[in-house]
């Protein structure tokens, strides 16, 4: 086995060195890595975080038990996430000669049956996602192709190309599918400046939020003289609702490593860091394995393949601070300090990590690089819109039928992403809004669903691309509550360094809390106070946006401004009618006792924490509204269903 691995390794390296595309030699014993030519069954289990959370580990155990019991030799591979989280756990089986077939929502009980049938070349009675298309193997009859599945059909998977399909911690497989060839070609044939040039011409823009031209950014650092430069991959994916970076690292870590290696060559950095959230243990584990493999192949280290280029990557774990997604805060965190932003200028490209020129790119940006180098910048530039090139990965979550990751060319409309790809709103509810860009973004409503996805159009619609989390909300979502949720998030994640963000977000949150809560003595005056609060919200927002030190503060008011813009009526309803139509703001509920149903058992009065329920034994009880704090303890306690919510 070891001998074979060594042989494979030598072969792959020779191939990489020859400059010939590896694909051409695929027959040469390598097909196995590409899985065109296998001799034993190959079993794939979607074991990204989402898969594991849905029970992939149990499926794995069931598979192993089955194979052992039946004494079957097979290869079991844990893949990353293919992107369709709502169908997890996924179990794919490929038997020699037949197409790989994928089963969704598998349970451990079903495993044995699936294997019994498939190994017998029959279709089991389990939900099939589809089969993978191939030219050399036989298809399963009456099984749709996975690429024709509604969810995948309109996608263009460049960044997610390998995710969920390959073994993420098998460098041979990555190389067999064309990986690391672009890197070596770049090292041997291109100069740093050409690399920066080509990336700039490709039109690739930062996928982390701002959308700055990546190549242009690289040039700032490339053009600064220094004995040491750094590249940092920002994998501190803190936006709640975004998980594409996690999926890329879990599903295809070598793509990121290759992207970083090319980027580092472009800017002249020899040292680099991946700053990754500690909340992503699986991604960290797989990335570390992949790094070891790349070092073993000589793709990282000193004098890489004799080109004289040195480059290595260190993994730094974040310790839980959203603000560390901000470049200068991230730098402070890597330096072992409190993750508080620094004023700019000086920009990190001039003076960053340890005072040296530093380029920070996010995972998706860097994962785009190998593809651009492989297919040429012109190909990349031909995808997308005039100003936004290539594809964008979106993380779909919330009240949507298919949750998961969607990669589409820029320019696709939001409606297409939501309704034709992601299957529309769950449970046939009515669409209300989709939050894009996380806590820094805003919401897109029905009237803007047809805008094409590109940086400028989304900003025009009052939101921002951000990292690409799309959280879908339906009629049962309260937009004031959403604004409060984001404000609460930002408030607790504000680093506290600058005054407008530290004090301002707290005051904004308090105003929102006032709107969604019923004070004990509610009167016209307090309604006026609440209206004043909303006016104050808008004023405070302006100052916070204009004066805050970093991006977190500068965008902190966005969710409030955006919901105020599109859902002012919901605010008014909360303020004047003291009502939450969606029924989310529980503290606004009004409880009433149905005198016909009440038996006077006194349980509710005993449970009431504010002493708002009065009534004698065996006589119907009554709620004193002025005292009620809307906690709902009475309704929970009542055995006679006598307490209703108005």
């Amino acid at each position, binding site marked *: 086995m070891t001998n074979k691995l060594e042989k494979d390794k030598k072969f792959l390296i020779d191939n990489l060195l020859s400059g010939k595309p590896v694909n051409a030699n695929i027959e040469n014993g390598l097909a196995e890595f590409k899985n065109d030519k296998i001799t034993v069954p190959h079993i794939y289990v979607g074991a990204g975080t989402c898969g594991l959370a849905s029970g992939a580990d149990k499926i794995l155990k069931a598979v192993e038990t089955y194979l052992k019991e039946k004494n079957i030799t097979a290869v079991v591979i844990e893949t990353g996430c293919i992107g369709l*989280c709502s169908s997890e756990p996924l179990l794919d089986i490929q038997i020699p000669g037949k197409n790989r077939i994928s089963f969704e929502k598998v349970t451990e009980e079903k495993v044995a049956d699936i294997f019994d049938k498939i190994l017998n070349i029959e279709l089991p009675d389990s939900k099939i996602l589809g089969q993978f298309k191939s030219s050399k193997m036989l298809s399963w009859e009456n099984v749709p192709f996975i690429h024709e599945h509604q969810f995948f059909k309109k996608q263009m998977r460049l960044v997610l190309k390998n995710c969920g399909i390959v073994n993420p911690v098998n460098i041979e497989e990555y190389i067999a599918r064309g990986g690391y060839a672009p890197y070596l070609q770049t090292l041997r044939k291109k100069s740093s400046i050409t690399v920066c040039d080509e990336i700039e011409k490709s039109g690739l823009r930062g996928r982390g939020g701002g959308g700055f031209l990546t190549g242009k950014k690289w040039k700032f650092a490339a053009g600064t003289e220094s004995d040491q430069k750094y590249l940092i991959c920002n994998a501190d994916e803190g936006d709640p609702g975004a998980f594409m970076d996690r999926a890329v690292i879990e599903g295809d870590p070598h793509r990121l490593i290759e992207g970083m290696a090319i980027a580092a060559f472009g800017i002249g950095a020899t040292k680099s860091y991946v700053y990754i959230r500690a909340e992503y243990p699986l991604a960290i584990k797989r990335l570390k394995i992949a790094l070891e493999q790349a070092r073993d192949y000589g793709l990282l280290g000193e004098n890489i393949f004799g080109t004289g280029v040195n480059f290595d990557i260190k993994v730094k774990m974040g310790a839980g601070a959203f603000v560390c997604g901000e470049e200068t805060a991230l730098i402070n965190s890597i330096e072992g300090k409190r993750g508080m932003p620094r004023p700019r200028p000086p920009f990190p490209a001039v003076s960053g990590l340890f005072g040296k020129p530093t380029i920070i790119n996010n995972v998706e940006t860097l994962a785009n690089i190998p593809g651009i180098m492989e297919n040429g910048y012109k190909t990349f530039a031909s995808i997308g819109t005039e100003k936004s090139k290539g594809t964008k990965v979106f993380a779909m979550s919330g009240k949507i039928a298919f949750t998961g990751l969607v990669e589409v060319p820029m320019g696709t409309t939001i409606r297409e992403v939501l309704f034709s790809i992601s299957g529309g709103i769950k449970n046939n509810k009515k669409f209300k809004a989709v939050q894009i860009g996380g806590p820094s973004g805003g919401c897109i409503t029905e009237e803007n669903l047809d805008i094409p996805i590109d940086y400028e159009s989304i900003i025009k619609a009052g939101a921002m691309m951000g990292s690409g989390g799309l959280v879908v909300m339906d009629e049962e979502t309260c937009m004031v509550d959403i604004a409060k949720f984001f404000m609460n998030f930002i408030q607790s994640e504000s680093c506290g360094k600058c005054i407008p963000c530290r004090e301002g977000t707290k005051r904004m949150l308090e105003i929102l809390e006032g709107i969604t809560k019923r004070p004990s003595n509610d009167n016209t005056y307090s309604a006026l106070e609440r209206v004043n609060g909303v006016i104050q919200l808008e004023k405070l927002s302006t100052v916070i946006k204009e004066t805050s030190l970093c991006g977190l503060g500068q965008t902190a008011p966005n969710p409030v401004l955006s919901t105020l813009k599109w859902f002012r009526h919901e605010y008014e309803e909360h303020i004047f009618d003291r009502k939450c139509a969606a029924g989310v703001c529980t503290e606004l509920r009004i409880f009433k006792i149905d005198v016909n149903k009440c038996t006077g058992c006194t349980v509710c009065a005993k449970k009431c924490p504010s002493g708002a329920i009065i009534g004698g034994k065996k006589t119907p009880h009554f709620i004193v509204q002025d005292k009620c704090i809307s906690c709902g303890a009475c309704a929970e306690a009542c055995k006679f269903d006598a307490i209703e919510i108005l």
Partner: protein
Amino acid sequence: MQIEEILIAHKDSEKDSLIPILQEIQESEGFLSKEAVIRVGKHLDIPTSRIFGVATFYNQFRFEPTGKYHIQICRGTACHVLGSSTVLDVIEKQLKIKAGKTTRDGLFSIEVVACIGACGLAPVICINGEFHAKVTPEKIKQIVETLKNQNS
């Protein structure tokens, strides 16, 4: 691993190793003790006030041990939209402690954590590193009961 072993492994470390060292100590000890903070300060020649400042800045670091079962509740947007606050409510009521606290018997502790990144399966909770997807109040009650029974 003992603190000393961790520090030996970081023998020639610079000041930028502070966070990784604290992470390793917490991983091994469960929390950061005062003694650990002082010891790390001596090792890296960093004032303890700064170490405490750094450690209190990040969500990850604790200064008290957690319960035997450490329940983390995701507070991401998707989880929120799909009812994570109700889930938190239920757990808090069931265990009779607030988030950030440990039960008196030392069995359970609750922590609200930043988005775990499993938004497609919201709401998500994580108990001692094991994820539970699409939890409902009923489901969580059951999980907690099972763990309680295992220990009674």
